[in-house]
């Protein structure tokens, strides 16, 4: 027994998914044999099934966003491990629409490989399949990282926008183009003041001296390339926001969507404090904060930290973002 509440099998995921499916039986269905979750309802106009997935431990991502207006299916892997291709293949086959299925994939080698193999199998089975790659993490934006920027918090924004677009009947190519453009206009930066606890051992995944921050941490608890000393949250948020704005350079009329995201065990008091600071910085920089989210959307088990995501939108993207959705973790 570790500090995790589990049955001693070391497998948190299948038990969680069974409970999740019972809790949200009006919205989702779970296939325990093939390990994927599908939506009970989807807009009649939708012609392309939307599917995402990745390692578990990031809840509510992805299964929490399965439902009307967002995903048709999610494939959760083991904790921090991408799903396997069979899971993705079968889920894709189950939810493909007349115009095929779209994979929303966070940019990690494992996810790319497994989704890639599944895509080959789908092509083989005559099912059209497209991919949108989410790669918003500013900390991994470096020439030295051949794998490219990681996908993190923006995933939920991309899923929401694509859900709204898919509900208008948009076809596969349109969705790939839209999703790729939207993902390209998102950047995220994450910090942590303490590591998550590894489920296997119950121990912190890395040691961080008090007063130090992991600046640019990954959602799997990959450490950043450096540690820096903790500052007042106002200063920290200003630094982070300026880095994001520097990469995105929104125009004065561009509507910006902000996501203040808890990575697990940061309190809601702190997240709202962070949002207050972010609002002040954006006001001072004359950025038009059009929409915002504050809460746990893309977590890293019980990591003590938060991420900031900014998305530069336009009228059409905002409309898709505002479209109704009803999923376990997104209502409105």
């Amino acid at each position: 027994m570790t500090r995790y509440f589990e049955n001693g099998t070391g497998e948190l995921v299948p038990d969680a998914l069974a409970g999740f499916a019972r809790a949200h039986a009006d919205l989702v269905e779970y296939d325990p044999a093939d390990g994927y979750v599908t939506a009970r309802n989807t807009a009649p106009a939708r012609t392309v099934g939307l599917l995402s997935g990745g390692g578990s431990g990031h809840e509510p991502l992805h299964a929490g966003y399965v439902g009307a207006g967002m995903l048709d299916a999610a494939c959760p892997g083991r904790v921090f491990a991408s799903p396997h291709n069979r899971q993705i293949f079968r889920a894709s086959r189950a939810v493909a629409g007349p115009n095929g299925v779209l994979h929303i994939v966070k940019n990690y080698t494992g996810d790319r490989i497994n989704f890639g193999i599944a895509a080959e199998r789908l092509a083989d089975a005559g099912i059209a399949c497209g991919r949108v790659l989410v790669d918003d993490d500013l900390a991994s934006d470096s020439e030295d990282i051949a794998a490219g920027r990681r996908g993190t918090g923006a995933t939920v924004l991309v899923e929401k926008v694509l859900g709204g677009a898919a509900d208008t009947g948009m076809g596969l190519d349109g969705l790939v183009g839209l999703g790729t453009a939207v993902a390209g206009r998102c950047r995220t930066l994450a910090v942590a003041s303490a590591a998550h606890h590894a489920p296997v051992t119950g121990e912190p995944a890395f040691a961080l001296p008090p007063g130090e921050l992991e600046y640019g941490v990954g959602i799997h608890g990959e450490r950043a390339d450096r540690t820096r000393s903790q500052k007042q949250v106002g200063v920290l948020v200003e630094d982070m926001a300026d880095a994001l704005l520097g990469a995105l350079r929104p125009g004065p009329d561009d509507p910006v969507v902000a996501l203040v995201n808890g990575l697990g065990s940061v309190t809601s008091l702190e997240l709202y404090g962070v949002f207050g600071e972010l609002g002040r910085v954006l006001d001072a920089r004359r950025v038009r904060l059009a929409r915002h989210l504050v809460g746990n959307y893309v977590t890293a088990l019980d990591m003590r930290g938060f991420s900031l995501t900014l998305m530069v939108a336009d009228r059409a993207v905002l409309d898709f973002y505002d479209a109704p959705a009803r999923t376990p973790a997104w209502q409105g």
Partner: protein
Amino acid sequence: MTTAAFDSTRTRDWMRRFTASVYATEAELTELDQRVGDGDFGTNLAAGVRAAGLLLDRPEAPAGSAEALGAVATAFLDEIGGTSGPLFGLLFQALSRAADGSDAGLTTGALAEGTAQGLAAIRRVGGAEPGDKTLVDALAPAAAALRAARDAPPAAALAAAADGAWQGVRDTASLTARRGRASYLGERVTGIPDPGAVGVALLFSAAAGTVRTLAPHLPGG
């Protein structure tokens, strides 16, 4: 030289010892991935050999070397995610195909051919080059050793491959990573070997025996 081929029994023994090596070192592998990645490599690899064991040990178990390796490949490809699951699956698939395609079964030649093909597939799919601090850095020297040992019997050739792979593992310690999760940590991972490379070395070592602990094989060990 059919005597020089691994028959189904020896192939399955090899896989059993690989399984035992993975279980024995699972915690060490996890710990390595904790330091350079996200701490799931031990779990992923153990899940792979467990799923493979279920296929290998069925009553209607596969008969020949090619079939046995094919069952292992299927387990990894169909049941295991992560980065390493499908990549190990590709390697086993290539080894199975080579055994199948060789008249004499799993000869040294077939091992060399399968490993080379597996390496090529892994590089195609994962895009890593030697020096990126991935399992490619253990697999490439293993493939080279097998090619060089063409005239030796399989056991000796695999022993040479294991030596090459462990050397590759040690070499990864001095690298910073360009691929895989370790690449996000920059200079911080210097000094720590790549866990996926260790997994490859465990595979080749298992032809000769079970590895119970990594320390003797790692830098400073």
